[in-house]
């Protein structure tokens, strides 16, 4: 164990220091007034949840900030989080017409202003619908689950969320580094949903703490929104050594303010997705001096957003391309180093896939106090099997309306995210939650007409 550098208790100020400061009111007004208020605006189309961006920006200029936030949150129940974590360059801001000749409107920052405004003033934006007497269970209280719950509650259905974690919010509460998205924001969004009368049972793992039957027997519909699991093992020797972390666990602990112990000065992160970046930048902010990301492919293939890559470099994270881990070496039961082998890229025949091929004889060892695995997330298929839901290696099969093969059972968010089909963004999960909720609502109305017995899933 290395002695210097990292401390036991995280220096809260650096971890919580936002990546970029909120705009001042004067900046907000100047920026909002710059918006052209386009008709059929491309920013609206580019937003997966179709927030009426010109409308919410205009409301800021007329000092109707509550109305502005309502427009945002109406379309996107995670609008406050998305204001901070959306890859806006690829979405609304990338579509802004002003980008052609000038700089696009800072839509994300304006959205942050409006949603912060109502959050700081504790303004409730929505109310529950007239009760329908229908009961819906949602497995997972992350972005997709919350979005579905919010919409179903507004439609008057009685919603119960089962969440394995002790708090709602999923990725937003536990998975996104605090300096990009604070827990306050994520928990406020969850609270807005709960305030609509949604029952939230946290710390409940379905299938373990709660029987599958109690789900299928007591609810009229079921929405699966349980996300993904932890980082799958690298399947190399030494993974069980102390000081080897699953990036998801690592970030969750840091964000929850729990101790991750002394991580030392030298941190190796394996993988180059957004979670890898988060783990690496977290480590830097925990005062690790030497943080490097090792990836078996190159910058061209990495899945991290360009702005995340830039941010990591600014934070002092180093990148080592074309290195595949062979084994993790220990001293006693504690990690000491990682042995890598250099790789080269071989393209598939259609050039669509880049395969990393180890180059024999290029092995090398890098000393490390902490190793963080960030090579994707595993799939949770147990519940799917128990419910007889069709899936592909844990990816729920859904149609356009987020319906599974089983009547009355719907899925949204990461558990239905299929690699290569869109991006696993918070905003996409929010939209899927909305779509699933709309489908549930239609299903429940149809069930009423066909005289289905209350409180029982059909099929």
């Amino acid at each position: 164990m290395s002695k210097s550098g990292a401390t036991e208790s995280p220096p809260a100020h650096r971890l919580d220091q936002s990546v970029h400061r909120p705009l001042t009111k004067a900046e907000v007004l100047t920026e909002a007034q710059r918006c052209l208020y386009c008709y059929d605006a491309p920013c609206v189309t580019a937003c997966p949840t179709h927030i009426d961006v010109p409308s919410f920006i205009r409301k800021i200029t007329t000092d109707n900030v509550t109305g502005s936030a309502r427009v945002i949150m109406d379309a996107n129940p995670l609008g406050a989080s998305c204001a901070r974590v959306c890859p806006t360059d690829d979405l609304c801001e990338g579509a802004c017409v002003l980008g052609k000749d000038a700089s696009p409107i800072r839509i994300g920052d304006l959205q942050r202003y409006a949603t912060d405004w109502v959050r700081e003033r504790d303004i409730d934006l929505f109310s529950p619908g007239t009760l329908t007497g229908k009961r819906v269970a949602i497995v997972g209280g992350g972005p997709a689950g919350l979005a579905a719950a919010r919409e179903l509650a507004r439609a008057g259905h009685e919603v119960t969320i089962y969440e394995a974690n002790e708090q709602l919010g999923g990725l937003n509460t536990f998975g996104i580094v605090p300096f990009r998205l604070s827990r306050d924001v994520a928990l406020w969004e969850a609270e807005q949903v709960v305030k609509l009368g949604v029952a939230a049972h946290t710390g409940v793992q379905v299938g373990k703490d709660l029987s599958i039957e109690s789900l299928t027997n007591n609810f009229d519909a079921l929405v699966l929104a349980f996300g993904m699991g932890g980082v799958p093992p690298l399947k190399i020797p030494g993974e069980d050594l102390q000081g080897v972390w699953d990036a998801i666990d690592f970030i969750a602990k840091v964000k929850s303010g729990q101790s991750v112990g002394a991580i030392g000065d030298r941190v190796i992160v394996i993988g180059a997705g957004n979670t890898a970046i988060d783990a690496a930048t977290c480590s830097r902010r925990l005062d690790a001096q030497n943080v490097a990301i090792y990836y078996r492919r190159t910058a061209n293939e990495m899945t991290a957003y360009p702005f995340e890559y830039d941010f990591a470099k600014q934070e002092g994270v180093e990148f080592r391309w074309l290195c595949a881990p062979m084994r993790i070496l220990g001293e006693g039961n504690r990690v000491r180093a990682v042995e890598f082998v250099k790789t080269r890229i071989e393209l598939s025949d259609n050039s669509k896939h880049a395969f990393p091929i180890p180059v024999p004889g290029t092995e090398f060892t890098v000393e490390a106090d902490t190793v963080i695995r960030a090579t994707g997330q595993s799939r949770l298929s147990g519940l799917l099997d128990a419910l007889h839901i069709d899936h592909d290696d844990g990816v729920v099969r859904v149609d356009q309306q987020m319906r599974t093969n089983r009547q009355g059972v719907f899925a949204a968010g990461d558990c239905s995210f299929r690699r290569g089909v869109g991006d696993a963004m918070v905003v996409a999960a929010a939209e899927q939650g909305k779509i699933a909720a709309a489908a549930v609502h239609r299903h429940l109305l149809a069930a009423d007409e066909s005289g289905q017995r209350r409180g029982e899933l059909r099929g």
Partner: protein
Amino acid sequence: MADLSVNVGGIRSPNPFWLASAPPTNSGYQVMRAFEAGWGGAVWKTLGDPIVNVSSRFGGLHVEGVRMVGFNNIELITDRPLEDNLREMREVKRAFPDRAVIASLMVDNVKEVWQEIVKRVQDVGVDGFELNFGCPHGMSERGMGSAVGQSPEFLQLATEWVVEVAEVPVIVKLTPNITDIRYTARAAAQGGAHAVSMINTINSLIGVDLNTWTPIPNVDGLSAHGGYCGPAVKPIALNMVADCARDPLVGIPISGIGGVSTWQDAVEYMLLGASGVQVCTAVMHHGFRIVEDMIDGLNQYLDGRGLSSAMDLVGKAVGRVVNWGDLNLEYKVVARIDQDKCIHCNKCYIACEDAAHQCIDRVADGSGQLALVVDEEECVGCNLCAIVCPVEDCIEMARVDAGGQALSWRERQAL
């Protein structure tokens, strides 16, 4: 370098930019600073029987982040002793003999009173007088300002009294709070005025505080109507200037006032018949220093057009202002949208669709975007799309008629 000097009814100044009678010309200190900055003339804050002002006097109209698009005030004429003003006017004139110092006057509409103040003031060596028949607030309740300016008879009478004793040119400042300004302008000319200046401020109530429900400006919970000025009034003033410039019964020089902030504004006023301009709101917003670019910009403009004198501009557009009935009904323009410049904000589309003639179509162009295409058959050439378009020179209004024989409504009625 062109000659920027102007002559307004016999009052000469090295450039056409004068300060209007208003808070910026309240004292010798201010006018000295203005002349140091380069202003060609200054119409001193109106002299008369000293008054008492209220506290809280101005209100601003801000539009979508642009401050002071319009401005209003309920301040009255000078509240300083006449002797102080006269002493400072003499000092200023001595320090800047080449600049025009004009005394604005407003007194009870009594012959003796008018003639007494004229005699007192012209002793200090002013270059001219401006009779304030324009202020719409406060003084008008006492039978002065616009109360006189709204009556051609009273206005002419007072003008005659002043001209009778004045040894320097007399300008009559007109109120726009009247149905047809030509009648008072003609009265001024009849009365012997050497020039008219227009416009004074417009009756206005600038706004209401949404929290207190008190109109603005707030004077102890109450407000009163004030005089409106600033960039937003320029079109109203330009029309009045042009109306007077093309009226043979007016026939005297015009000093243009109303929202002049730049050299471009001044050029427009001069093209429509003003021999010079007066400025207030822009100075209240930015200070005297703005005159530097007014002078520089006008110089560049005149040089660029090969004009040797600013006076060459005066009235050049007057002949192009006609009655509606004389416009050519055969002339036809249509909107043409430059697809390379278009940023697809669709402002033109929705403006035309909701507020004009539904003649812009959104057509799939194969690039995944909907191109905005004008149906030239349906387009009436109203200009709305080009006005709302945020991209410079993206929408051109192109002439499409054959350019044949013109036909006005008046001519058509006679057919």
